[in-house]
């Protein structure tokens, strides 16, 4: 339907690529750029190699089109993890072999998750059933996977979401009320703040809270996950898609920035000389993780 502005590679059959573009634009509303046909052809070839006979080319193209944004469609298609999207699409249509392959991943997920959700009173088998129903039955959630990130990561996020919802419903049923003392940043069990003279305590706590707010975007989250959630450097690196060295550096830098900023804030509030300030923050810094953990424990609503 569109005459390519530059010669199509000889390997592609013009009729075939035109057909793919037609299947794409049947679902997607926009003006197809000239290179789209070749890109779709390439994606179909990869899927046929990875999963022979799993999904017809037209169906794969329709699935890509269903998730494609109105603009930058070429970049979207170039990033598409076509074999994984094909697997998800086939599973959403009830293909037994695709579902079996994904169920193996679900088993791994449940194996990892069920300890965290042990308090739900569900066995690993129960969780597996619940996850399977969500993904493959009725209006199958697996159809929402858009092929841009890995299917493995998508399945894990989706499972996390599902299990948290389960836990929340159970909590609501029990009407669990959080212990208000736990949320008190000046609580009596704060070792670092406890060591500080009472007159400075509030100023230091407030400065830490303010300093946390002034951290660069994302750093508060990283620090909170590490210090409060107990996520290791490796876990943070995995979920944030960064190298573990980057994760470690980022935590260290955020922690330093937090102390430096808090120190400046305290200096502007209290009339302390450099030595006193150094003493005060020496005390705070040595046990700072406890304080930061408490202060960051509850992100603002």
């Amino acid at each position, binding site marked *: 339907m569109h005459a390519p502005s530059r010669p199509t590679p000889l390997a592609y059959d013009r009729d075939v690529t035109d057909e793919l573009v037609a299947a794409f634009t049947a679902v997607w509303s926009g003006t197809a750029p000239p290179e789209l046909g070749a890109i779709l052809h390439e994606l179909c070839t990869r899927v046929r190699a990875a999963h022979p006979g799993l999904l017809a080319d037209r169906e794969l193209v329709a699935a890509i089109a269903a998730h494609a944004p109105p603009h930058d469609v070429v970049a979207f298609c170039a990033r598409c993890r076509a074999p994984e999207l094909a697997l998800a699409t086939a599973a959403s249509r009830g293909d037994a072999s695709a579902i079996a392959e994904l169920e193996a991943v679900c088993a791994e997920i449940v194996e*990892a998750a069920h300890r965290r959700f042990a308090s739900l009173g569900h066995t690993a088998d129960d969780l597996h059933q619940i996850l399977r129903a969500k993904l493959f039955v009725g209006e199958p959630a697996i159809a929402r*996977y858009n092929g841009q990130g890995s299917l493995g990561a998508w399945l894990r996020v989706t499972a996390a979401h599902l299990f948290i919802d389960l836990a929340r419903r159970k909590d609501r049923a029990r009407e669990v009320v959080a212990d208000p003392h736990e949320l008190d940043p000046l609580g009596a069990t704060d070792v670092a703040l406890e060591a500080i003279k009472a007159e400075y305590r509030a100023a230091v706590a407030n400065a830490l809270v303010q300093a946390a707010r002034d951290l660069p975007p994302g750093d508060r989250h990283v620090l909170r*996950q590490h210090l409060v959630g107990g996520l290791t450097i490796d876990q943070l690196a995995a979920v944030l898609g960064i190298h573990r060295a980057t994760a470690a550096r980022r935590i260290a830098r955020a922690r330093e920035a937090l102390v430096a900023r808090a120190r400046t804030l305290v200096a502007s509030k209290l009339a302390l000389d450099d030595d006193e300030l150094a003493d005060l923050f020496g005390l705070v810094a040595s046990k700072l993780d406890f304080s930061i953990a408490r202060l960051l424990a509850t992100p603002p609503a």
Partner: protein
Amino acid sequence: MTTCPDANVLAELADDALDEPSRAAVESHLDDCAACTELVATFAWIVAPPPRSPPGYELLAPLGARSWQVGDGIAVTYGARCAPGLVAVRHPNLAAVLAVGEIDGQPYVVHEYFARTEREWRDVEPRSLDEIALVWRGVLAGLAALHRGGLAHGQISPDRVFVDGDRVVLGAPVTELAATSGYLAPERLDGASASALADQFGVCAAAWEALAGHAAYSGTTIGALLVATASPPELPERADRRLAVLARGLAATPRDRYRDVDALATALARPRRPLVAIALVLAVIAATALVIALR
């Protein structure tokens, strides 16, 4: 607040497939969203589950990269080892090791932990030399118990000594912790393994710092420390008597130190007795005079 990222976006974040502006937008959303914080934490748990808790314990809160609180004042440290005999050594001045084992191929140690180091205890308010000396005699008692059990500590430093209320405790020797070089005996800097006499050097270096108000040795390289520890630190003018006792424990040659930490503790505790010395001198003079008179 921006809308929460869906599973596709979080998967892209994890796979580093987002462009910079999108990544920044997502991360900045995570800063302030409690629901997403919980989701990401659970996601991380599923991606890389933390170690299972030791039998009979439950992981309560993280205490550091590899430690979790598992009870009141009790922590588990993964990737750590200690001498198996340590579980049997119990002394009020020694942090108890409650269990050691291995889970999923990873060693762990369940041990008592304390929040306030001796250094912090001194920082909170001025302490008299007698108070400080009393604390270090407690440390020596804990160390002596360890040595009686046939074990050496190997990592004594001011950061491994805790003052928790009325309790003085020497931290448990757990191998995941690195020994601090400013407190290592010269023979250990030279490659020897931990020993009771090297522990004596370490505890004297740490106690010296507490009593003298400055480190016994300074030096940032092993070479510099080897030079520095070749002779005991110089006694300050009008030094407290106890520093002289510690200086002997800091002898470069192990056999020049006290026989054991009990002997060191006795020497530290011995009050000054000038009258005894004068009486002794007088007795010698009297005896000599008597001998001369009787001749």
